[in-house]
């Protein structure tokens, strides 16, 4: 029965003169998401609203599911539109709408009419009263409540007349492409895909870097990361994934530095490399899935030690989240099941039984001097041999 959707957006509405930039980006992202759906749609913005109109048959559930992945949408209202064939017909259509959408009539409502076409013969107040009365006449159990109704029946008079009352919550946030681009350090775990999702939600375009360490990590572990990136693209749009072969660097650190400091030194080099790739790809920030105290390399001291190697801002959207909270988001965005597949990632293969939890930066830097001979060259090799995968 529904033939269109009215898209509500929250924060964009408060923007000033650059508001059109955000609206245009939202329209673009909606069009992009709808390409995944069966059917043809037209997306247009009029008078501070965005409408999605179906031009052909379409799958309602599929369309709503895809609209729910577009950042910037706060609500999706399925709309019935009818031709203006006089009040009598409108009244019949409205009663029919209420009958279909609310099978249980033990419910309260109010009518909220608006006229974009001011030459309509009845004014908004009159429409409210007349339609409200007709609905009350049609269904004896239904009641009006103008203060806290169970549903608000919106009637918008345009070329055609739009009827809607249901609001399906959207994901919120800002449309992708309205902020800059950032580089996500993507492992195969639960946290990093969620971190990418959260930053993308603020309108940020995402690239990703993955460190693999063959033969210690497998092709399947890499495939898992590609799969995770693919799940995130539903929200973020296409992701360019940079795969860095980290084996030689890792083994070099293993041989030259104290074992308890392996992970922290490794992570410092990962950040360094990620920053380099970020710079080469016009990213203006790094994203990690770190959360204070979750593991040895994520204590405040460890975070300070890894943070020290780069000058680019590092965004850590999960920093104050508990594991369970992160898991809940990963379940919501459908990355959880893939994340928990048991493949070894390069952070765990040589991990010490008791890694340092409060690294001393001076000591670490001192030990890193043991790497001076070859490490720069190794980083260059790692960068020049990176594999670039476009995930979409």
């Amino acid at each position: 029965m529904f033939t269109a959707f009215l898209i509500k957006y929250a924060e964009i509405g408060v923007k000033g003169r650059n508001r059109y930039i955000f609206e245009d980006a939202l329209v673009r992202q909606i069009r992009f998401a709808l390409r995944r759906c069966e059917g043809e749609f037209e997306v247009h913005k009029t008078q501070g609203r965005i409408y999605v109109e179906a031009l052909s048959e379409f799958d309602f559930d599929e369309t709503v599911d895809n609209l729910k992945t577009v950042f910037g949408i706060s609500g999706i209202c399925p709309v019935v539109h009818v031709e203006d064939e006089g009040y009598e017909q409108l009244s019949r259509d409205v009663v029919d709408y209420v009958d279909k959408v609310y099978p249980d009539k033990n419910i309260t409502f109010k009518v909220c009419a608006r006229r974009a076409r001011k030459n309509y013969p009845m004014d908004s107040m009159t429409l409210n009263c007349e339609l409200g009365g007709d609905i009350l006449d049609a269904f004896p159990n239904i009641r009006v409540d103008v203060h806290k109704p169970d549903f608000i029946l919106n009637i918008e008079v345009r070329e055609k007349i739009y009827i809607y009352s249901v609001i399906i919550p959207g994901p919120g946030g800002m449309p992708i492409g309205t902020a800059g681009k950032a580089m996500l350090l993507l492992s195969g775990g639960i946290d990093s895909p969620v971190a990418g999702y959260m930053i993308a939600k603020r309108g940020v375009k995402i690239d990703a870097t993955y460190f693999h360490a063959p033969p210690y990590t497998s092709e399947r572990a890499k495939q898992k990361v590609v799969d995770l990136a693919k799940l995130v693209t539903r929200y973020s749009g296409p992701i360019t994934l940079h795969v860095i072969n980290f084996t030689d660097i890792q083994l070099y650190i293993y041989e030259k530095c104290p074992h308890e400091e392996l992970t922290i030194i490794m992570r410092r080099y990962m950040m360094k490399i990620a920053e380099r790739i970020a710079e080469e790809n016009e990213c203006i920030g790094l994203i990690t899935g770190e959360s204070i105290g979750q593991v040895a390399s994520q204590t405040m001291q460890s975070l300070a030690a890894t943070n020290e190697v780069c000058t680019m801002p590092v965004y850590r959207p999960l920093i104050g989240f508990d594991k369970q909270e992160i898991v809940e988001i990963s379940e919501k965005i459908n990355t959880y099941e893939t994340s928990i597949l048991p493949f070894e990632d390069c952070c765990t293969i040589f991990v010490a039984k008791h890694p340092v939890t409060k690294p001393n930066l001076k000591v670490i830097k001192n030990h890193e001097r043991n790497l001076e001979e070859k490490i720069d060259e190794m980083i260059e090799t790692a960068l020049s041999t990176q594999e670039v995968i476009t995930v979409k």
Partner: protein
Amino acid sequence: MEVYLDNSATTKCFDSVAKIMTKVMLEDYGNPSSMHNKGMQAENYVRYAKEVIAKNLKVNEKEILFTSGGTESDNLALIGTAIANQRAGRHLITTKIEHPAILQTMQYLESMGFKVTYLPVDAMGRIRLEDLQNAITRDTILVSIMHTNNEIGSLQPIAEAGALIKRINPGIVFHVDAVQGYGKFRILPKKMGIDLLSVSGHKIHGPKGIGFLYINEKVKIKPISFGGGQQKGMRSGTENVPAIAGLATAVEEIYRDLDRDMDDMYQLKQMFIEGVSKIQDVKVNGLTDRNSAPHVISVSIRGIRSEVVLHALEDKGIYVSAGSACASNHPMVSPTLKAIGVEKDLLDSTIRFSLSVFTTREEINYTIKTLYDMIPMLRRFTRK
């Protein structure tokens, strides 16, 4: 160089198998149940396949039932027998080193109220006949023992077990999972006291998704799936004719020169074992002589995790399994390796090499040489 040494996981099809299957799919694609000629053509492939297999096992054609493979054969054998014979008793016997298709099905039957005894094995992975004898009670209705172990290649005394079971109580049904043994040995159910025999097509260079269960016509067994009543109602569903035709061809080919092929395979196995035994701190598990399977070699390499060896070999074009292939996707300790008493440090450092009739001397030499180069390098880097 590509060296495929994971033949216990699956094998490459014979050319002749792929050829006959293509012909069936493109030309003789009828449904064997259809009444017209096209149906009869298809039925003839099924009939011929039964003939080939029955002759190979020296059994009656009507005792061959086509299934989707080893797992389905095992499931039907155990569940179908348990349900059909539950009035006679509710006790089942198997071993601790069976394939998950048996162990998991046994667990399911336990949840249905059956009692299961799991026989231990010695350090060479063989059951003891006296353990079997002691386990049999008046309530026992089924004994299931694998012919050849998939992880270490140990062989069970099937004929002796069959004789023992039938001497104690001819009514006990004897099932043998021969997924790894068929195509390597001549198996004669009637002579060995076997009532049910599970076989899979893709382990003998046939297609995946096909196998059979030999069912002694005297055995009481009930179907576990229902539908159009094909295969006399024992296994409904349109027969997988292309795969059945492929399976028959694979059986013919693999048994054509069996003795010569197995002699060759045993020689390659010996060569491989002599080669790897020269590496320090490397142990070959189970028996290595003619009392073991010709194609399975289980090797523990101290100090290196099996997954790392696997991926390092892969990088050189050599494909192997870590422990048992069926367990390789989830880091689970292999019950078989545990049962034969492999020490804890080595459980996670065990690799399975498995050969086929396609394996060559050059491939074995290349693999040994690669291991010589690789192992000392990998041992430098281990988790401390």
